[in-house]
């Protein structure tokens, strides 16, 4: 199989996966969505009648009025396509088509800060904030992790290695959000250095906003990096450990090339393919934010949007966010496939 064919096949598979995810989400939330929409229509119709006394006086009996109300509800439901059950292929097909052309529709309850109810606007507003916190944290984690991991992997069994490995194992058993709670306790309550809530109180138009935002970000970033980099270092260490035993490293050592140059030049470059894959996956994963960590720090990003949408059962938002996140995830899988092929010659030559 040629490389191009391989990638074409991967792309088709990933697209199929995307469709399957979308279908699953719609299947999961569809029945609730209809119930909520119908309730909304009924409330709307009743409110109109209460406001407009003329309609009421035009009816002879309450039966007639009720008949009118149910007619109105039925009409409006038909406009929205609610007369068909949610599982009818027509409606599911239409929903998927709309999402594919990036028409996410309007949210039921949530709005963006500027007041827009378009799901696209809401997501576009939350995404940069998540990138600011989680993607930055991921970048820091990977830089520290690669550096520490390369050093400890170059000398298995050394003190650095033992400390890194045990730190990695221990830190991975602590839930990040719990450490976040502790950090808030320690640095927002015990020593009041940082604010407990990660959202700045001053409006975004204020010139000091960026400074305030960075200040509010410090605590969550420290927490995420502290818990995250151990795992990274451990992974890189394991890749490096294998490569450091290869013959070409021994040769370089014997001809007297400096240790630093061997570790960060030759060895790390050879360990690059799996590291790049993990980097791509964790960068795209960071776009989803972290639902629980954001809840702890009160960070208004994608994670909190997701959680709010789920608790309010704001289905267009749930579907839109799932779609966006899955797209990012699949694209990063695809990109890491591409990079792997580029970095590892064994895949290129098949």
């Amino acid at each position, binding site marked *: 199989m040629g490389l191009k064919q391989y990638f074409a096949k991967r792309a088709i598979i990933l697209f199929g996966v995307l469709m399957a995810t979308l279908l699953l*989400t719609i299947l999961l939330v569809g029945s609730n969505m209809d119930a909520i929409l119908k309730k909304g229509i009924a409330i709307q119709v009743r409110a109109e009648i209460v406001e407009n006394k003329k309609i009421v006086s035009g009816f002879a009996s309450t039966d007639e009025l009720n008949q009118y109300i149910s007619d109105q509800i039925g009409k409006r439901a038909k406009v929205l396509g609610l007369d068909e059950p949610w599982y009818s292929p027509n409606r599911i097909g239409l929903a998927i088509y709309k999402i594919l052309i990036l028409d996410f529709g309007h949210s039921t309850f949530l709005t963006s800060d500027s007041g827009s109810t378009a799901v696209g606007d809401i997501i576009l507003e939350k995404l940069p904030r998540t990138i600011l916190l989680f993607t930055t944290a991921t970048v820091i984690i990977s830089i520290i992790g690669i550096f520490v991991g390369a050093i400890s992997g170059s000398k298995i069994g050394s003190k650095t290695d033992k400390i890194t490995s045990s730190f990695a194992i221990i830190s991975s058993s*602590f839930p990040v959000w719990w450490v976040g*709670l*502790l950090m808030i306790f320690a640095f927002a309550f015990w020593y009041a250095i940082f604010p407990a809530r990660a959202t700045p109180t001053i409006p975004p138009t204020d010139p000091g906003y960026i400074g305030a935002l960075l200040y509010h970000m410090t605590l969550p970033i420290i927490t995420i990096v502290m818990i995250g980099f151990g795992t990274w270092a451990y992974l890189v260490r394991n890749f490096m450990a294998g490569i450091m035993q290869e013959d070409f490293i021994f040769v370089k050592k014997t001809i007297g090339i400096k240790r630093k140059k061997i570790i960060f030049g030759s060895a790390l470059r050879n360990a690059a393919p799996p590291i790049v894959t993990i980097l791509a996956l964790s960068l795209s994963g960071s776009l989803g934010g972290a639902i629980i960590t954001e809840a702890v720090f009160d960070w208004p990003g994608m994670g909190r949007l997701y959680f709010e949408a789920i*608790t309010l059962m704001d289905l267009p938002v749930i579907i839109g966010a799932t779609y966006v996140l899955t797209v990012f995830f699949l694209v990063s899988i695809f990109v890491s496939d591409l990079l792997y092929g580029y970095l590892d010659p064994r895949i290129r030559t098949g």
Partner: protein
Amino acid sequence: MDYTDIKSSFRKNKIGLVGIGILACLIIASIITASIIPVDTYQQWNNPASWTELPKSAQPIWINWISEKKMPEHQILEAPQTILKKGSSESIVIQRFQVNYDSDYFPGEFLLNYKSTYSGSPVLQISIVRPDNITLELLSSSLPYSEQKTYYTDKIFSTNESIRKNLKLQLDKFPYQIESTNAKEIIFADKNNQVLKGNYEFIITVHGTDMIDSKLILGGKVFGLAGTDELRRDLAIGLLWGTPVALFIGVIVAIGSVVSGLVFGVYAGYKGGRTDESMMRLNDVIYALPALPFLIILSVTTSNSIFLMIGFLMIFGWVGVAKVSRSMALQIKTRQFVDAAKTMGQKDSKIIFRHIIPQIMPYALASIAISVPAAITTEAGLSFLGLGDPTYPTWGQILHDAKSHGAAARGLWWWIMPPGIMIAITGLAFVFIGNSLESTVNPKLRR
């Protein structure tokens, strides 16, 4: 490599043994919990009515052992000395509560909780004898009149207005000046208006009935081994009962997902061709699903039953194992003994379960141990978001309550630290066991 080898090399692995040790402690703790603490107290966890006698946000009792100043201990005195005097006209019941008060601070409010069966109109008197033998009459009040025999229950709080007035009239009993106007601060005051330590005796006298049962609750700031939360719940009970629940969730999810992943992967690998292809695509779909959001959607739309959650966690847990065991099966199926079994005409299922899976078993055991912590943390995370099963309180739910009452910002550390430490310790035990199992069964990682 057979199992005796694994056992002997595992025994040499110190970290693994530490893991086994921690796990053993947790299991012993669960057994003791299940046999000593009644299940009923645990099931009443989310029922505020069953926790009214405990203090609000009290620190753990061991704080007093390490700090210089002693904080008042929350005391629930239930079995007083009871003397029944039957006279010709009326009977008198006297109940005495002995309290050794040695805290450096004044107690919180106290309350008397009593039940009585009587007819007529009995008179209830509360008096207190201080360590310096001053006797204070706190209250003398009659119970509501009733002609028939009636059952009556009530509470008397130390903030009661008549108690305050009665004490004001008795201030001259003290040889020194009392500044406070607060009942508890007058009762427990010494000459510097600090706390007078020593034995106090609360005496409850009831004229006109022969049946009274009372309970004295002396409010304090420390209680139990883990303190209490804002909703007055004894955190020790929640933490202890959380242990068997967490172990159950972790182990069941890990076994369920690893076993199903193993069978799925091995079958795909052994069958090969189209079967393999389509099974692996299914694997891809589940791998691409954002797990946490889907878990949240599932628990919001279906129900928050813990057994359903266990099922959902399994659905997202088997994918990685399936990938690895497929590639292992691809290697093993080319071995001669599999060919031999095939030529002998054995069924596929028999080959898979008798010849291939036993070869992968050590790896499976290691992955079971490693995936336990993930299951426990995910459940804790979902519970932390408030999606837990209220009938089975878990560590995550304790943390959820802590978060929603702002425990971190208010400094209620005994509400936040212990549940997280328990999660981490349980996770560590399995990570230790899993890592050392993996390094014994996987020669690549052995050095």
